[in-house]
């Protein structure tokens, strides 16, 4: 029985060795067919693809800013798809040029590429696959306001390998797509023009909650930025140090998120100042002791 198994293992090892040898020979044949003319054509194709991509980037972004706001995100989110089409076409054309895409050649090249990718470009390949998956899952798109890991901002570009996010501090962060395998992606607007803005206010426990609620509703209802067709909600939460109010509302344009929050806060504070509302006080041990004495 053991002898029979040894024979089988030997036969498998032998056939694997033959296959590797055959693949290596095929690859050698393919490489030998690469001529200077083909290399020149390849460079020309790459340059054309690069130019087309740059034109597409500029054109789509220009168009999205020119048309009505309601179409802005839809147009922007079409860009990754177009980029993928251009890149896939370029890759297929290049492969056809250099590798003469017959069934045998595809098998040979795929085997070689798979081995190379497996060892050297594992993360890169994972990001590219995640990027393609992300296109269909629509976890995020250009124009969305997302939080991936610790980073929050507007998605400004969706590349083959990574996504670029512009933070409120105007930093550009590049995040590889493969983060979607492991990290939670929080999307504030998911393709919509509006994204909810939560503005927090803190007061002492003895505050007149109904009056504060009324003021907060009015503040949101009278802001020029508020999308009134979407709900405005005030949430009250008791904390050991005071009462917390959360004003949840939507700006007309998600891009105005921070200006909107500032507008709400400043106008609410003006109203609160008129009523002399008490803010939470940090318990001061020293002053408490001196009062005792």
């Amino acid at each position, binding site marked *: 029985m053991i002898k029979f198994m040894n024979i089988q293992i030997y036969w498998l090892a032998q056939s694997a060795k033959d296959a590797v040898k055959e693949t290596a020979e095929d690859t050698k044949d393919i490489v030998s067919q690469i001529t200077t003319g083909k290399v020149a054509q390849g460079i020309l194709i790459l340059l054309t693809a690069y130019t087309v991509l740059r034109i597409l980037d500029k054109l789509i972004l220009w168009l999205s800013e020119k048309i*009505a*706001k*309601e*179409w802005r995100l839809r147009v922007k989110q079409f860009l990754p798809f177009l980029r993928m089409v251009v890149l896939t076409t370029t890759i297929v054309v290049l492969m056809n040029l250099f590798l003469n895409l017959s069934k045998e050649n595809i098998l040979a090249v795929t085997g070689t590429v798979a081995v190379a990718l497996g060892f050297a470009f594992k993360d890169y390949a994972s990001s590219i696959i995640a990027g393609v998956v992300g296109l269909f899952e629509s976890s995020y798109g250009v124009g969305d306001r997302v939080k991936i890991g610790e980073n929050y901002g507007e998605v400004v570009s969706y590349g083959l390998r990574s996504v670029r996010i512009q933070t409120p501090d105007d930093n550009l962060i590049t995040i590889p797509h493969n983060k979607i395998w492991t990290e939670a992606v929080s999307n504030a607007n998911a393709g919509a*023009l*509006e994204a909810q803005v939560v503005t927090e206010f803190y007061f002492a426990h003895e505050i007149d909650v109904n009056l504060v609620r009324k*003021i907060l509703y*009015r*503040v949101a*209802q*009278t*802001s*020029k*930025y508020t*999308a*009134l*067709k979407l709900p405005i909600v005030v949430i009250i939460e008791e904390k050991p140090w005071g009462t917390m109010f959360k004003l949840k509302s939507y700006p*007309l*344009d998600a891009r105005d998120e921070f200006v909107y929050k500032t*507008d709400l806060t*400043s*106008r609410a504070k*003006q*109203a609160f100042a008129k009523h002399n509302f008490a803010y939470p006080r940090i318990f001061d041990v020293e002053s408490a002791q001196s009062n005792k004495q």
Partner: protein
Amino acid sequence: MVIFSVTIARMFKQLKNWLANQRSFLFSWYTKDSQETQEPERSLTELPPETKKQLVDLVQNLPNNPIEQEAISVKLDEAWKRWREDPNNANNSVVILSSPITAVSIIISETMKKWSQQKQIDIKLLPLTARPTEITDIKAKLEHFLKYKSEKENHDEKSVEVMVIPNLGWCFLRSLNGLEGIEYLQSLLCQHFQHRFWVIGAGQVGWEYLDLVCNLSAYCGETFVLPEVSPENLQTWLNPIVEQLSVTFDRPRIDQQLLKNDKDDQTRYFESLANVAEGVSTIAVQVFLKSIYQQVENDDQNEEEQAKSKPNPLAKTPQLPNLPSIDSIDRYILYSLLLHNDLTMSALAESLGDGEGEVQGRVQVLRRKGIIEQQNKILKINPIHYPKLKQELDSNNFIISGN
């Protein structure tokens, strides 16, 4: 199901309007011989200053379109009759909505005066001619005019009051304290509904806003939107000017002649005018003004000879001008003006939550572009830009009306 069918009907209407607007463009592709068969364009110049002044004066002195007053009277009669028959259950108010560029207060005041004479009923017209300068005064003024008068004067329990608010836009400002007047009005609308009948005029954009923020429609009865003015009515209304200045009408494009071959130039002109103005008299009159040119009899005449010759006004095919380019900040300013119908600079700044100096600069730019008009200290939207501005704001997520 009802909402779905209404939406379909509205979409169909919009498509129909769009096709009607684009008709000349679409047909120009098919009528290959239009260039050959079209009559050579007549030479046109600006009207001489005297004629232009005369035309502007005539337009300014033009009475309000009587068709709007008639429509209001009919609606009012119906609502009044229902309320008198069943004061406990029928609605005790009628809200008359107009486009935000229509002077709704004048139309309602004039209509109500005639109606009160006709019905022999006393009306109490809110004597506001503009929004109070101090926003905190709005509520006090409403209390003074609406509450105290009625309580003092109403000795008889069975007597009936007709309260008229010609322009609701003057009773609020989109600011923290600017809605107190509306809250007070809501409380009044719920009281004495057997003895008080309300007639309220408002702009459509302002009404939509107040409805979303204060749920005002729940407190009021029927809302009635001023009807679209027909081409025949426009023709009758503007006819005194046409006759006085002997305005002639240009021959339309060949494709329009083919489409409406049984109609004369004047009828075709007023059909286009009503269509372009979306049936709003205020827009129609501005487009009419813009379409009048001086017809030059002889191209060889020099300027002096042209000035001496008898004015020969010609009305060209009515068209809306293109909306000048506007920034996102401008959209907020223009929307605020539509929301309140008219505003002073300080009220506009308050409604935007910005500083007056900040807003003033942008307003000056918009004035130069011709989108905003200023009369004394009051800022308004130029009616001729309203149809395109409405589309622009609607497609940028602003609530205009009915969406």
